[in-house]
């Protein structure tokens, strides 16, 4: 396969401003620089560090002539048109709001089913399943390594019977489901489809949802992998092939920056490593014989939203522009749907504090607003108690209400990409694009993301950034309210959800019941579905 160089960001001279206007703006800028320097000489700034939460330098002021070389059509454009900087839908949020999709899962399948129904009853519009750790690794609840873990970090799913209980009374032709499952994704995907079929739903026409299925970010950040990278990539490209043939409305992967950021990366690293991961999946898919336009439209993304408002918005806008450019120019995709970067956002868990936990509602609101202004397709807002435990029902509801208030009361949905054209936001977006292409080139030099991971490059970059941030926090260069500023000495603990260790015994008992009652012979005799890459079948 030939791999073209990433496009050098060719800039044309602006046609927005005439040279006279540019000159006048430059003169005004000089006047401002003089004026602010005079004031600063008398009274110095109240602090010295005005960088983002990722320690990105932020200009004091961006003026029009500084972005005069950004092309208003080929780099910014309009929503629904290449390069999609301003959004993928021509109708923005007037056509359809983002999907409110709260990540949930704890205890038994019955416990989580009740939480799903509670969230749907309160206006949630999609499901998102958190599985417990043994399921993420493919261990049964009675495995020695599952001791203490059952139902703690997510819902315990050992069998199809558990999966049926999880979605009991929830029509899978009417709700889309996202599943945070990676190493064992093929198994849980199969179970989900089996539940849908048993409900009488036509999986070829009516089932939609998303598998996280992003193994590369497991090596980078989340670390819940089973197999080595290359073998894992084969499992994933096989699923691309299966789904585009049998479950065409399914998003086969959610290429995730979220965990990279939670592991301590900067916003730019999150953006760059996630896009480069996406490119790796595209390259492996093409090498597996698939046509890029058969599977690329079903690739989806998942980003974090941290506290630094404009940095986040610029990140989402940059992500769309970079992906469209790479898909069209580097991989030769012809279908516009292959160029569109669709993404889910989760507000930053790592930004929340155990201290004065109600402050977390405010943080989450700012982060959710950034995601919406950045044009997210779906959103999870964290509950205020998530540094302490999985959320209580009440706190989960407040988190959902946060999204509903933004959607229905703030008015930010009325106009698409309302920050587009802001000198500052366009400049920041461009810096994100340029910075990401620099990282992409570095990873290309390793031979690709798998090779870069094997060399430990992105892992080191993330860890160094995490340690720098910790130092900046401990040296009070970065202030976190309630932690190193405005601290309360005596805080009252809040009530949290407690998952008892007794659950494990019940879960193991019900799993043994399934094992005792099933017909193992029938399971062995059932032939596997033969998968043929759809690209090969049609071309």
């Amino acid at each position, binding site marked *: 396969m030939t791999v073209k160089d990433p496009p050098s960001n060719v800039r044309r001279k602006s046609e927005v401003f005439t040279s006279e206007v540019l000159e006048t703006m430059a003169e005004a800028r000089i006047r401002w620089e003089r004026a602010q320097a005079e004031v600063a000489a008398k009274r110095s700034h109240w602090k010295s560090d005005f960088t983002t939460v990722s320690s990105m330098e932020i200009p004091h002021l961006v003026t029009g002539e500084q972005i005069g070389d950004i092309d208003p059509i080929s780099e910014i454009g309009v929503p629904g048109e290449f390069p999609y900087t301003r959004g993928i839908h021509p109708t923005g949020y007037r056509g359809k709001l983002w999907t409110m999709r709260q990540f949930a899962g704890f205890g038994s399948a019955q416990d989580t089913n009740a939480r799903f129904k509670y969230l749907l009853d309160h206006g949630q519009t999609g499901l998102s399943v958190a599985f417990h750790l043994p399921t993420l690794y493919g261990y049964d609840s009675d495995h020695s390594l599952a001791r*203490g873990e059952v139902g703690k*970090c997510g819902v315990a799913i050992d069998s199809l019977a558990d999966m049926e209980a999880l979605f009991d009374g929830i029509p899978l032709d009417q709700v889309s489901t996202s599943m945070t499952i990676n190493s064992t994704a093929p198994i849980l995907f199969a179970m989900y489809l089996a539940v849908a079929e048993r409900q009488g739903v036509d999986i070829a026409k009516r089932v939609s949802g998303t598998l996280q299925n992003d193994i590369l970010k497991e090596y980078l950040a*989340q670390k819940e992998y089973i197999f080595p990278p290359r073998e894992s990539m084969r499992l994933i490209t096989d699923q691309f092939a299966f789904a585009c043939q049998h479950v065409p409305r399914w998003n086969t992967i959610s290429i995730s920056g979220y965990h990279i950021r939670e592991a301590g990366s900067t916003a730019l690293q999150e953006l760059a490593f996630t896009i480069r991961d996406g490119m790796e999946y595209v390259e492996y898919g093409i090498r597996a014989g698939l046509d890029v336009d058969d599977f690329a439209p079903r690739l989806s993304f998942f980003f974090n939203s941290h506290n630094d408002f404009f940095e986040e918005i610029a990140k989402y806008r940059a992500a769309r522009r970079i992906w469209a450019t790479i898909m069209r120019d580097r991989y030769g995709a012809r279908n516009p749907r292959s160029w569109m970067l669709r993404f889910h956002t989760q507000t930053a868990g790592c930004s929340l504090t155990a201290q004065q936990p109600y402050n977390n509602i405010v943080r989450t609101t700012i982060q959710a607003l950034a995601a919406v202004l950045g044009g997210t397709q779906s959103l999870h807002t964290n509950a205020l108690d998530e540094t302490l435990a999985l959320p209580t029902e009440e706190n989960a509801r407040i988190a959902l209400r946060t999204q509903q208030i933004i959607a229905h009361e703030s008015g930010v949905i009325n106009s698409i990409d309302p920050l587009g054209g802001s000198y500052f936001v366009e400049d920041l977006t461009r810096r994100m694009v340029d910075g990401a292409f620099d990282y992409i080139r570095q990873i290309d030099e390793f031979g690709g993301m798998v090779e870069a991971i094997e060399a430990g490059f992105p892992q080191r970059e993330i860890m160094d950034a995490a340690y720098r941030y910790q130092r900046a926090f401990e040296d009070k260069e970065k202030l976190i309210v309630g932690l190193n500023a405005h601290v309360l000495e005596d805080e009252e603990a809040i009530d949290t959800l*407690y998952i008892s260790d007794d659950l494990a015994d019940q879960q193991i008992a019900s799993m043994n019941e399934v094992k005792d009652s099933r017909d193992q012979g029938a399971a062995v005799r059932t032939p596997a579905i033969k998968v043929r890459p759809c690209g090969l079948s049609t071309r």
Partner: protein
Amino acid sequence: MTGSQHRILIAKPGLDGHDRGAKIIARALRDAGFEVIYSGLRQTPEQIVAAAIQEDVRAVGLSILSGAHNVLLPEITDLLAKNEASEILVFAGGIIPEQDIQPLQESGIDKIFLPGTVTGDVVAYLHERLSAAAGGDTAGSRHRE
């Protein structure tokens, strides 16, 4: 007393892969002059105790965010005792519900650090506890807060 005289094992029991905290603590202890060994992910109690004994460490720091602390942490202190290694100081950090803290301390976890801890507090804690232990106040002090 500087940290350089002490060897510390930072270990991750449980299945979760959240190693940001463990690695930051390991690096901060290293920068403070301790000799630090990091176990890597998904270590069983048996593996952690074997490493602690073989490496002859003064203290073991356990990082766990999976929720399995009630089962795995007491197993580690039990195994240390069975191997006559109770003089090794055991501390922990992670997402530990308030109600689990006292039972864990009773099982021999000397100190539990919660979200929001600064690394300097961990360094100061180890200096204090290990210098106290060097003065002859060893295993018996492990149940003191």
